[in-house]
């Protein structure tokens, strides 16, 4: 997967690095520069809604052990995560998608809980970014 705006390599503490991997503010600032502050707010609002929807879908796919649904969901989630510089979430999605693609269903479902936790942390990071911006 090509990724042109990596937040890795930026100096700072380990906690900072983890935070940057949750949501890269440099990527968001680039998006804002490419569009507008208003457009970024709209995008983050859509993304927040998507994260909630995907979260529900992953939980449902896990409960039903629906591998195909899980695969479709993490595939889409991976792309949007990369668009906002959510590297940690994108990596986890890629990992789960890879398990799905190779029919390693049990391993894929084993990661669902961690995936849901990461989605929640990403949502928190989005909220924090918006609060800081406001």
């Amino acid at each position, binding site marked *: *997967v*090509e*990724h*042109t*705006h990596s937040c890795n390599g930026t100096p700072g503490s380990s906690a900072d690095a983890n935070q940057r991997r949750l949501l890269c503010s440099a990527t968001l600032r*680039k998006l804002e520069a*490419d*569009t507008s502050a208003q*457009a970024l707010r*709209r*995008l983050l609002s*859509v*993304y927040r*809604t*998507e994260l909630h929807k995907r979260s529900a879908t992953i939980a449902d796919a896990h409960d039903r052990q629906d591998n195909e649904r899980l695969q*479709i969901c993490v*595939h*889409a989630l*991976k*792309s*949007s995560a*990369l*668009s906002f510089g959510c590297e940690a979430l994108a990596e986890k999605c890629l990992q789960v998608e890879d398990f799905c693609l190779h029919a390693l269903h049990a391993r894929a479902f084993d990661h669902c809980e961690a995936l849901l936790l990461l989605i929640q942390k990403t949502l928190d990071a989005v909220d924090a970014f918006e609060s800081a911006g406001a």
Partner: protein
Amino acid sequence: MPLMPSNLPGRNFLSLAVLPVSLAAVRVMRERALRFLQSRWVPAAQQDDLALVISEYFTNVVKHSPGATHIEMGVSTLRGGVTFILRDNGSDISPLLAAIKPLDTDTDDLPVSGLGLSLIGALVPDFRYTPGWPVAQYNEFEFDVVFTQHRSRVVIIDDDDTQLCLAEIFLSDEYSVTCFSDARRALAHIFLEGADLIISDIYMPDMDGILLRKRLAANDDTRLIPFIFLTGCGQASTREKVCTLSVDDVLVKPVEKDTLLSAVARVLHRARDVSASINVSLDQNITDALWRPLPERYAGYRLSRDYRVAERGGGDLLVPLHSDTGMTMILMDVMGHGVQAKFFAHALAGYFHGLFAGFPHEADPGRYLQWLSETMNSHALLSGTLLTCVAVHITPAGRVSLASAGHPWPWLFRPGAAPIPVEVSGVLPGLGVSATYRVVDMTLAPGERLLLFTDGLFESHGKGRVQGDSAETMTSLARQFATRDMTAEGVMAVFDAMVQGAVLDDATAVVIQRE
């Protein structure tokens, strides 16, 4: 006494109609305006508003100016559009226009009197009014109409709302974007409405991007629509698979704005190039069959012509006619845009060849235009056609006569002097029962050139729109003439270099140069 269209000094005024005052004349004005606006891609809602302004203004003249005998409507070139000029020889209504009250749409109590003028004030608030008295014979009411640029229609399909929103935000400044999260709905939309470019995700539930592409490829109307895959699937096997589907590009998410815009521009440009090449090839074949060749030299003049073919529409034709009295060239521009206009123009070209061949040969180009106008006026099909026309007659002794029916002014280029417009004008053919056309005679001195052209040369380009046929533009052209032995091909090359984007209307240049 036939009504003559006005010739407004210093302005390239194209008279669309001049008629005796009556409510029937108001209806004709409205219809003419609508046809003109339709031919310039003005949105339908704006057409209706502007036609209403014209109706209201002239109705006011008919009902409240008992002294008025004539009304006239025309347009003058404006950068990116036209100025509509409504003329009448009735009362000065400056006080009424100055007293226009804004329409309050929240109230049910609309004014009974003066509602028409209030509508005018609401629909064209930047109008200008110049009373005829005491300086001129005619009152002039003017308003500007800026033409909307054609924006390419991009359809985006992705089941991920975030990606859809992102792509829409990236592209919507430059393109008309329609988004779908469901490929089946997108397919139905494309079959119905068409598209200039499709951008689709691959991996989607229900119908995926690959099946969507196959469905589009199976349909003659949609097979050649440019197609880009925008996918989060980085697997080589998937990329190889989509490469067999005849798509124009495959982009991997996340895609940055510049990357997406650049890909879209490149693919659309390529598609336009291919389309234009096919059109040029087709048009060349038809043109070769319909346009008789222009002699390279005649009566001491060097003659040349060149043209650019619009992607989808417009229609220019040049008919040279030879007789004992000399040679007449008739340059016509059938108004309209789109595929239908082009095919209609081709059909008309054949018709006009036959028509002109049947006219008695004349040394007076005004008579050709008069016959043309009378024929169009009395012909059910042609009376619905809007075209401009300029006729030039060259005698064996080298005298040049010109007459124009609503056509852009020709320009005269003289060595070492500023170019000047040849202010010859006349009403559009077919608009009046007994139109007559003023003829301008001249003899060109050695080195002088006369440039005839259709308005596509100035108005049909995308981003880098060339300013109208102004003195500034012509002076720039004259500088090019001064350094080179320039023919119509040279004129076209200059304009090709000045403009960017799609050609939206046929453009023709004819250069008559005294040797």
